[in-house]
């Protein structure tokens, strides 16, 4: 274990815990991007340069910004007046601890994980591109289709209902039997 790995893992775990516990959601999103940056550093340490930079581009550049947009669009930046944790939070933490215990015991008892010497290989972007264009070309196309469908679907789901008179009238007449009760 090198010093950089210890520092990076401390950064990752502490910022992940901060992201899960803070009250202000914007601060949570900032801590989340710190976690992603630490993970990118670990990828660089593992000789996966391309994945490290793709992590920075996709997670910090896209996913964290998307999370910030969602927080601001839903007025989550206002500090919540009520409790941020659910009432059964003890069970959630217990389940997470149990999962960690099982995984850690498996890691320590496994005979497959041996301390073999590192081969200092460093795949170039050309090799990754070759693999993507020859052996993995079909999964790549499927992924492109999935991304297209997901982005169109996300836009349609989040699209605001048009204040079209006919549509709203039709919706009101058909959905009166299913309308949500205002008071409980």
């Amino acid at each position: 274990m090198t010093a950089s790995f210890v520092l990076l893992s401390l950064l990752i775990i502490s910022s992940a815990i901060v992201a899960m516990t803070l009250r202000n959601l914007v601060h949570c999103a900032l801590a989340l991007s710190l976690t992603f940056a630490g993970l990118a550093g670990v990828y660089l340490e593992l000789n996966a340069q391309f994945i490290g930079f793709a992590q920075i581009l996709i997670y910090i550049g896209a996913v964290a910004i998307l999370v910030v947009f969602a927080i601001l669009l839903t007025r989550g930046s206002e500090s919540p007046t009520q409790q941020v944790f659910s009432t059964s939070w003890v069970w959630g933490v217990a389940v997470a601890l149990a999962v960690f215990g099982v995984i850690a015991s498996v890691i320590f008892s496994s005979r497959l994980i041996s301390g073999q010497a590192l081969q200092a290989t460093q795949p170039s972007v050309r090799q990754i591109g070759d693999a993507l264009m020859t052996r993995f070309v079909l999964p790549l196309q499927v992924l492109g289709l999935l991304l297209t469908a997901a982005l169109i679907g996300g836009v349609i789901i989040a699209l605001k209902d048009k204040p079209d008179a006919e549509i709203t009238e039709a919706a009101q007449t058909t959905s009166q039997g299913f309308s949500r009760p205002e008071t409980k």
Partner: protein
Amino acid sequence: MTSLQAYLLLSALLFAVGLAGALTRRNAIIVLIGIELMLNAANLNFIAFWRYSPNPETSTGLVFVLFSLGVAAAEAAVGLGLIIAVYRHYRTTSVDQVDTLKG
């Protein structure tokens, strides 16, 4: 402790933190952030196993992580779209208050 074990332990810890957040927080956006953390833990496992595998020149683990990044981006887009739609309907993002289906 070998180095691979250290990476796997870091990944397991990150997964546990994400799981605890997804199970305990009320806000749906934070639940989604916890799921993202769990996905990242899985990615770290892929990279670590690829690095310590007998033949890392095939770069299968790297390509798998690339696909995983794409799927995670799609998941984030659709999930946040759903959260915005739910917010527009219920005026809240708390998963405890979206309970119309509760008996």
